[in-house]
């Protein structure tokens, strides 16, 4: 596990930061699944943590935001921020949770501009709302669509009639 150790060295400042935060307020837990370090941050600490990561640890490049439906009671949705520190060449995942009744997460688009579209995508797919998002519209599906397709209860083939097909007679409105 020398590889593991090396990685821990790379992430030493992050681990120190996490230790510090852990002592102060809410717990930030840390785990590592395959190679990238993952921080699990409570929702109310999210923006603060992300800002600190960007400003003090140089994670200036946001690669992706992933939404996940865990399909469990309580905190149903996971939002993962995939960050890159361009200076030291390391990757970090920050994870936060949102529950089903109030799927609301603060928006990171003030920190990284490109968070905007990724958050729109998660809103589109899971119905997770992002507060203070500049333009929270669906990104793929039409605004008239009522469901959130990547939630586990949504059937693969969709719900019949949820999106119209065009009529085969020419447009009524165009001719009038």
């Amino acid at each position, binding site marked *: 596990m020398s590889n593991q150790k090396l990685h821990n060295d790379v992430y030493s400042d992050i681990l120190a930061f996490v230790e510090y935060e852990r002592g102060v307020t809410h717990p930030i837990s840390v785990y590592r*699944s*395959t*190679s*990238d370090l*993952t921080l699990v941050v409570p929702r109310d600490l999210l923006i603060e943590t992300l800002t600190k990561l960007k400003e003090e640890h140089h994670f*200036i*490049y*946001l*690669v*992706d935001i*992933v*939404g*996940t*439906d865990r399909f469990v009671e309580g905190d149903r949705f996971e939002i*993962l921020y*995939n960050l890159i520190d*361009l200076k030291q*060449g390391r*990757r970090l*995942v920050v994870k936060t949770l949102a529950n089903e009744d109030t799927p609301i997460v603060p928006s990171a688009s003030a920190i*990284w*501009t*490109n968070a*905007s*579209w990724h958050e729109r*995508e998660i809103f589109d*797919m899971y119905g997770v709302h992002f507060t203070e998002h*500049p*333009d929270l*519209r*669906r*990104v*793929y*599906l*039409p*605004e*008239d669509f009522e469901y959130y*397709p*990547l939630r586990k209860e*949504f059937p*693969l083939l969709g719900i019949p009639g949820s999106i*119209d097909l*065009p009529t085969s007679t020419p*447009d009524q*409105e*165009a001719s009038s």
Partner: protein
Amino acid sequence: MMELEQKSASPTFFKKHQESFYKSLEDKHTTLEFEDSDDPLNSRMVLNMGPSHPATHGVLRLLLQLNGETIEKAKLDLGYLHRGVEKIAENKTYQEFMPYTDRMDYLSPYSNNVALCLAVEKLADVEVPERAQYIRMIGAELARISAHLLWLGTMVMDSGAISFFIWTFREREKIYDIMDQLAGHRFTVSHARIGGVANDITDDAMALIKEFVQTFPKELKGFHSMLDRNRIFVDRNVDVGVVSTEKAIDLGATGPILRGSGYAYDIRRFEPYLKYDEMDFEIPTRLEGDNLARYYVRMEEMHESIRILRQCLDRLPKGPIRANDAKQAYPSKDEVYYSMEGMIHDFMMTDTGICPPEGAEVYHAVEAPKGELGYFIQSDGTGHPWRLKVNAPSFRNLQVLEHSLEGASISDTVLIIGSIDPVMGEADK
């Protein structure tokens, strides 16, 4: 298409969607300057481009607010190709999902196959034989050249020279031939397998690749000599669609866009996969961040790809092409046909597939022609992914496009779209 924008006041379908889309154009800077009193002559025009437009590279839709021919504000509408591959992935085994990756970035399917395989292999801890890794690299670099050739053709065609497109297509046809020999289909190849590749390089394919590596640099030189000093082409591209380094990083640009803006971020160096750490190649970078810079970056990337291909061909080792572990990879066809265990393993692989440990998460990225293509997979211990997220480079680059269009003119728009080079199949998932 032309009708859409005339009906903007009263959209006939997806009413709510169209209204909110048009409204977002007004809301972008959250001011009330859009009121008519500010524009008594009605000189502002909202132009709808797409979803079916010759220059939007598929089905991208742009809403442009114009002042004369200058764009004041731009909004993008995606999703005209949305089919929900991530939903499909949750209902397929890992190997079954492979053909869908071909149809994500359909200009370079091989890179997508490799990206998925690498992610799953990292998740399930599969060791891939060396020869297979080299074959994957050859395929991925050929795919890069082919994708960049299409970009070159369409971008030059967007600037009006139609014949150039056909000339680059002639070169692409050669790569199609190689893929045909190598994998059995012209371009949606699905050649990679979890744990290796489907079949070994045949002698015919090898001969074709060698010939291509010999002849292509000459063609590339021809393209260079036709464009580098072409006043019309250079004048149209220089200082158009400028993205500064800071802006590119802030907007999450990736691939040639980021490198054209001056940051040498390339996954092949950043987090080397396959055997790229043993390869000798440069990361082309430009500082200007305009269309021309992206042009040079991509042209030089094709040179580097040829260099990598040469090294791969020199070093291609002998050996198996697939992991020899029945729980992790398909057995070879010989085994399937002539041994009982082989057959059972084949059934098992097809039926349940490879099962990574429960709760494992992985993010693995490769440098696809368009940029960083990453797969995030969460496993629940079965043969199907619990969650598979594609981090599509085109999606990220389109966001850069939305921000870099303002201030350009309509004739620049098509070139900027061309130089961003989005693939909608990938951006729309």
